[in-house]
């Protein structure tokens, strides 16, 4: 236990002295493993952790969706589409940020990975908000938080992994995610409205002119076609969700070539930008895998959850403790690592207390998603920072009010299971 605290302290120190997060986690995890198992085993973990982490077909969606967004942005397609939206709702304070949330919901129906979605929105929606004099703080926060919708709204990698680990119906989980996803989006819009009305972070745009709005709307067409095509490819059985990301790249390339709005140099910059974000993300995932490996060998989570299971606390208290543990794990670990570490213990406890497995899945997903928004390991905020150049400090500050709303939504889901269960029960009746 003392070693564990020392390792956490080491991690905190390294991060406080501005060592790159990935490097700090890798180092702290490595030192932890060496202390726990000895030097030779710790070294041997390094043999293949980078290969094992990156050699995954599921991950291709990340560079591909980022590339798609980069291409659309480089080819001016996103800007025009957003101007079109702006012409309809720009006169509302914070309208553009709300449009970004709406776009995140649509993107979420395409993407199953929160980081990929954040990167795509950061590359496309953020520059527009900046152009329209939104504060960096709000704009970057909106894309970070909007990204989390991707794993609640189906398809979702997190829900599938939960389903497989716990043998819960993936179909039901997918349906169950829809209302909580929309509820989250609604909550985010509400926060934007409040911020827009109480601060000057979200200025009002030009007044509404019907004719301009109608004329501008034609610029939405290419994006709309692309989205229909990619979603169509998934739902029409032409491509799996990961493969669909590649279709998105081809579609956006066709659009920008058709509009003659992409130079070779801009194409190069897009690919380079996508690589840059991917390398950053995969390095963090690989290094946090080393840390997660250390965490697994300490058996801290196991002991904690086993302890919870043996106490005679009330079911509500136990559920609260479990959610809290998941939230804390979210501060240090990747979502999928949390699921594989915690579900084998947390799920049986939840079932023993007679909670619904589908509901629990949505609660767990929502909880680990919140971890993507909190320091020290807040992957969505990192992706947004890398893509936009806004300092992390600013982004985390901007996320704060949204985090409050995320917690409120989580509490609503916890207190009213019907929000989650209504749709799957209705549809399977």
């Amino acid at each position: 236990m003392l070693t564990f605290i020392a390792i956490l302290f080491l991690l905190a120190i390294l991060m406080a002295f501005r060592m790159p997060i990935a490097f700090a986690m890798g180092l702290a995890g490595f030192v932890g493993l060496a202390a726990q198992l000895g030097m030779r085993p710790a070294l041997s973990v390094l043999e293949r952790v980078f290969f094992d982490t990156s050699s995954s077909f599921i991950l291709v969606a990340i560079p591909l969706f980022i590339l798609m967004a980069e291409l659309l942005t480089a080819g001016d397609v996103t800007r025009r589409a957003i101007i079109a939206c702006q012409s309809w709702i720009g006169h509302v304070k914070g309208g553009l940020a709300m449009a970004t949330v709406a776009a995140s919901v649509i993107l979420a129906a395409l993407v199953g990975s929160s980081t990929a979605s954040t990167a795509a929105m950061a590359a496309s929606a953020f520059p527009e908000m900046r152009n329209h004099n939104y504060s960096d703080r709000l704009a970057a926060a909106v894309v970070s938080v909007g990204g989390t919708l991707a794993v609640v709204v189906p398809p979702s990698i997190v829900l599938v992994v939960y389903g497989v680990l716990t043998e819960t119906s993936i179909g039901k989980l997918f349906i169950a995610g829809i209302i909580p996803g929309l509820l989250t989006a609604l909550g985010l819009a509400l926060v934007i409205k409040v911020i827009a009305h109480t601060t000057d972070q979200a200025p009002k745009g030009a007044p509404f002119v019907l004719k301009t709005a109608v004329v501008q709307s034609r610029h939405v067409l290419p994006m709309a076609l692309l989205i229909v095509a990619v979603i169509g490819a998934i739902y029409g059985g032409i491509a799996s969700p990961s493969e669909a990301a590649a279709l998105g790249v081809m579609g956006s390339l066709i659009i920008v070539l058709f509009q003659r709005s992409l130079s070779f140099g801009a194409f190069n910059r897009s690919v380079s930008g996508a690589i840059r974000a991917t390398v950053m993300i995969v390095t963090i995932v690989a290094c946090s895998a080393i840390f997660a490996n250390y965490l697994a060998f300490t058996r801290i989570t196991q002991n904690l959850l086993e302890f919870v299971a043996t106490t005679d606390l009330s079911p509500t208290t136990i559920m609260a403790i479990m959610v809290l543990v998941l939230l804390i794990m979210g501060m240090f670990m990747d979502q999928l690592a949390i699921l594989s570490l915690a579900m084998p213990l947390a799920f049986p406890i939840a079932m023993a207390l007679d909670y619904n497995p589908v509901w629990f899945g949505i609660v767990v997903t929502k909880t680990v998603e919140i971890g993507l928004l909190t320091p020290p390991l807040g992957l969505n905020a990192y992706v947004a920072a890398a893509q936009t150049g806004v300092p992390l400090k600013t982004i985390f500050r901007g996320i704060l009010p949204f985090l409050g709303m995320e917690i409120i939504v989580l509490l609503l889901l916890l207190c009213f299971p019907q929000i989650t269960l209504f749709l799957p029960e209705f549809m399977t009746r």
Partner: protein
Amino acid sequence: ETLRLGDFQSTSHIVSVEGTAKWMAAVEEATGGEISFEHFPSQQAAKSAAQLDAVNNGILDAALLGAIYHAESLPLNSVVGLPGFYGSAVQGTKALQTMLEEGPLRDEFLAAGVTPIFGFVLPPYQVLAKKRLGMPADWDALDVRTSGSTQAMTARALGAVGISIPGPEVYTAIERGRLDAVLFPLASVPGYKLNEVVSHISTNGSFGGYSFVMVLGNSVFDGLSDDVKAEMIRLGGETATHVAQAQDASVSDLIVEWQAEGIDTYEFTDAELDTIRDALTAVNTDWAERINNDQAAEILETYRKLTSE
């Protein structure tokens, strides 16, 4: 002594409940606590393909290996992946246990730095689809999800196309029609909820196998007392039989369940079985050529004999 045991399966899987966990508990009890285990399920200690390395590097003392993940170090053991051999988990497990007692399969483990304690198999892979697949003509040009080269070859031998799709995406891929069929062990179907998206499941096919082998690092095993070694192996044998029976029983239950859900669970006719078996002999030849090991033919022969009993 506490042994760190790595496992890539989750603790809720039948293989874990009726196999790994049961064996660990039995060993702990039989040795009066002299041996205890720290279990690291769900790839917590090492990824599936890294479990063998982890034992050799001292990260783990023991591991439940999926032989298929280690075809490079354990090429002969990949024989269990071939189609057309065992018909039930009990039959396949019996054959595997015999081959692990002595002979090339056992020697291969020892040479790889680990001692096999016991091994068992999943019930044979079946085909799940949205229509009934029988004669090779039904399979023509279908997109069939397979995992690994042997299964891909199996699909090709039947005229279909072997498609690799990550496990978590199989559900969506079948539901949306990206895949026409999937070769899958029936015991794992509930885990991936594939019964929600297919309408026909074969029950007496043999589209390949899958073996698990519990191993201890050679130096760890050699350091144990003879009593403990003997107990581990004896209990391992019992566990292997038990987990095989449990899986076969569970598959029978699942079939009844699926029938109640309106799924067509069907048996191939003898004519279909013969035709399929003939088509699949090409897979064995291909396997022997690929692993290019002079004991390949011998192992095939032994395995054929043991699974015909």
